[in-house]
């Protein structure tokens, strides 16, 4: 009896893992790392998780979780509320719609796909922020941030693959 409860709890925790990794990466991305000049190239860690899970296990990453994590991101970074939620949802939707194309392709192709989505997300964020603040924002930090995000993707994807292996199979 007790065993069954634990098994269910275990299963439940595993099902939540993708959503939790996105949330954890949002928190990780705002931790003060005390690295000189890091703030101008800070990568979008959560975007990697949104992309990875909506490609490989969309059943375990509901849109609501993506939305809530986006709001959390906006509040923690002090940005306009809703902006990151919109961008995460956009990335989630585009990735989901291209899922059939990417599944089974080599890692390089997937990486290239992530680069496209990260580029679109960065441009959209830049347009959003420029509109909201009513001024043309210096684009260079955003470009560095984008490059950093794309460059770090393989490392995080490797970690996500490890996590994915511990997840229950899709029904």
């Amino acid at each position, binding site marked *: 009896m007790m065993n069954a409860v634990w098994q269910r709890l275990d299963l439940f925790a595993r099902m939540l893992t993708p959503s939790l990794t996105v949330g954890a990466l949002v928190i990780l991305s705002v*931790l003060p790392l005390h690295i000189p000049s890091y703030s101008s190239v*800070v990568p979008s860690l959560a975007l990697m998780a949104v992309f990875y899970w909506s490609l490989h296990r969309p059943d375990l990453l509901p*849109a609501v979780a993506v939305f809530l994590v986006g709001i959390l991101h906006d509040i923690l970074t002090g940005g*306009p509320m*809703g902006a990151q939620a*919109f961008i995460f949802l956009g990335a989630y939707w585009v990735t989901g719609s291209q899922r059939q194309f990417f599944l089974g392709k080599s890692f390089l192709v997937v990486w290239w796909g992530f680069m496209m989505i990260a580029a679109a997300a960065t441009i959209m964020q*830049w347009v959003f922020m420029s509109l909201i603040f009513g001024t043309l924002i210096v684009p260079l930090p955003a470009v560095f941030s984008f490059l950093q995000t794309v460059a770090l993707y393989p490392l995080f994807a490797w970690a996500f693959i490890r996590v994915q292996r511990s997840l229950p199979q899709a029904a």
Partner: protein
Amino acid sequence: MFLFLLMSAVAILLFGKADPTVFERTRAVVMDTTAPVLEALSRPVATVAEFIEEIEQLVVLRDENANLRQENVRLEIWQNRAQKLEAENTRLRDLLRYVPEPPAKYIAARVVADSSGAFVRSLLVNAGSRDGIVNGQAAVVGGNLIGRVAEVGQTSARILLMSDLNSKIPVLVAASRARAVLAGDNSPLQRLLYLSANAQVKPGDEIVTSGHGGVFPAGLTIGTVTSIGQAGVRVMPYVDWDLIEEVLLVDYESEAVLSALPDNSEQSVKSVGEKPNPRR
């Protein structure tokens, strides 16, 4: 469902833009709840950073010691001078019946999150309204201004750094006393705006807070002018924001300025009220 969420995000964005106070409570609650988590997580990171720094310091210990001895001699001479000047200043102030600035109170806080990215430059600290933190207070590191409080929760607060797009601070060029506004644009250097055409500025000039608006104390050092050109006057701040672990928040309210003024000096009271509001 998906479309509903997407529309919600847009709606939140528009509401927040129309009236930034709408989500103030929600933001404060989320900040207060995540601050302890962030604090717990940021400690080991800080410990590793400190460890690396200590090793680096061990290497340069001898050189630093020699430098410090030299500096000590130099500072003693300065101390002597400062004491003389202070005495002279007091005498002259007495002569002029000058109203001194009210003493400021400092609140120390730890940085728990550095949410500086490509679009927003801010820090989250582990002190809030419970500790006496109020919107608009100046944030200082080592006597140098880094920004101001922009959001306050009960146990946490957000500091908008000077480099943020929304940061505008009334300043003075220390040498020529020319007034200006220091504005951030998300790049490491800040711009001097509204500097009058005949104002004298040259690279190397120090920029300090002017105290106009009564929110910041006057004379807090900020940085030095690095370049004057087509892109305007650029200022390099003294503090490297990536390395900040603790900040001091200066409790210095305009009411304190008003109450410190003698009753019969109506003109001075008026001039305080007329000064531009730096929070705009």
